[in-house]
């Protein structure tokens, strides 16, 4: 899994070493890192629905690693924007965060992921208590939603990838909602039986 997750970065470094990053390397690198952040985040969010649908559980321990790698790529994506693309031009970046909705939601997605990365250790789960920790980590869904909107809003007319990601997220969230609804109905039925 480590190898798989580091592969996109390794490719990027390989191409950088060859000077083979298109005519507009900074834009290419930013897009590449953002693409992979979103892909890994979506995969990490697909593991639980996969268990719900198929009953398979082997993939569950991978959630933490994938979540952290998603954060890693988001961090790189953001750092390139900050340090390379805008070269610490705080005024312009500040204006962009406030005035450009796609940058605002992108930034919000990054902010959502920070507490998740910070509380990713087993120690933190213990300290927060599993229910609190679980509630906090629902932010991952918010982050994925914001990231998908970020991509939908920045994409130019005629592109389709942004809809593919938004569709994948809708499926992943839909499965969760479907099962949550079932659980809710089942528990109501059980309550009704107990009462009668």
């Amino acid at each position: 899994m480590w190898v798989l997750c580091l592969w996109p970065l390794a490719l990027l470094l390989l191409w950088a070493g060859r000077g083979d990053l298109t005519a507009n390397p900074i834009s290419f690198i930013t897009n590449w890192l953002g693409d992979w952040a979103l892909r890994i985040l979506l995969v990490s969010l697909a593991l639980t629905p996969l268990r719900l649908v198929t009953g398979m559980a082997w993939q569950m321990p991978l959630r933490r690693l994938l979540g952290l790698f998603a954060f890693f790529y988001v961090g790189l994506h953001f750092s390139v924007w900050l340090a390379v693309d805008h070269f610490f031009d705080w005024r312009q970046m500040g204006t962009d965060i406030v005035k450009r909705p796609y940058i605002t939601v992108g930034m919000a997605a990054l902010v959502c992921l920070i507490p998740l990365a910070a509380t990713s250790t087993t120690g933190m789960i213990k300290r927060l208590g599993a229910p609190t920790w679980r509630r906090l980590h629902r932010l991952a869904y918010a982050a994925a939603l914001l990231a998908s909107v970020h991509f939908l809003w920045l994409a130019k007319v005629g592109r389709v990838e942004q809809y593919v990601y938004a569709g994948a997220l809708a499926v992943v969230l839909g499965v969760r909602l479907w099962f949550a609804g079932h659980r809710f109905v089942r528990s109501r039925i059980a309550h009704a039986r107990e009462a009668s």
Partner: protein
Amino acid sequence: MLVRRGPLFRESDVTPEAVYLNRRAFMVGLGAVALLGPAGAPEAAPPAPAPLAAAPNPAYRLSDPPTKWEDATMYNNFYEFGVNKDDPAKLAHTLKPRPWAVQVDGLVAKGRTFDVDELMKVAPLEERIYGLRCVEGWSMVIPWIGMPLAAVLKRVEPSSQAKYVEFTTLVDPEQFPAQRKGFFGFSSLEWPYTEGLRLDEAMHPLTLLTFGMYGKVLPNQNGAPVRVVIPWKYGFKSAKSIVRIRLVSEEPKTAWNKAQPGEYGFYSNVNPTVDHPRWSQETERRIGEFRRRKTLMFNGYADQVASLYTGMDLKKLY
């Protein structure tokens, strides 16, 4: 503070074509990427076109060094070939730039159809080095070869009702693969691609009817065999592979304006003080440079064209 100047990559860093193609093959092989990227085998870069002689016009020379030929011919927006920057170079061989006819008509006294080889002889060809600013926030410096569009327009004698000029790009799904209907009839833009200028903009000496670049005939991916270049406007205004130039009395409908009227106006003058709704236009990245540079009003041609827009609110008429 360490500030890096000059191009990020040297000529010697340019990857040999075989390695470049390997990379593409590899990418296509990646499952996730293959799903989203273009399917099929990678295409070789098209061969360099034939030389085209033209005298440099010293009145129109940007002092900045021209963009590398490889970048100017392999990083293009030409939606008839596809939405990716590398689609035009890969698919350009499908376009047949000869024989080619250009209809020049509408509100004119002597409307007619020119063969492109005849059109090239209407006035002497000259080389001009212009800045090219893309609405996406990057720019290039390109030595174009062409003649003032005014020379051709005068030849057909516009009538007094002619107020605008409309340019139409070829429609032929055989030659322009992205004009074929995609899934669910999905298409990026409405074809044909049309663009337009006010007549005074079209007659302006900077507006160049263009047949070549870098001392060569226009490569297909750059709009062969004939395009316009309007250096003070965002790149998409400069229609490529033109089959018709029509003089009209009403403001023509333009392709990007039809697709997203709130984002792409008729004028689309390069203007650092008017943001694109989704991004700032204050700065640009010159292809080959590391740091962003400030975008200049009218792309640096304010002295020559600002008077065309006296009294107009350029925030409204963007």
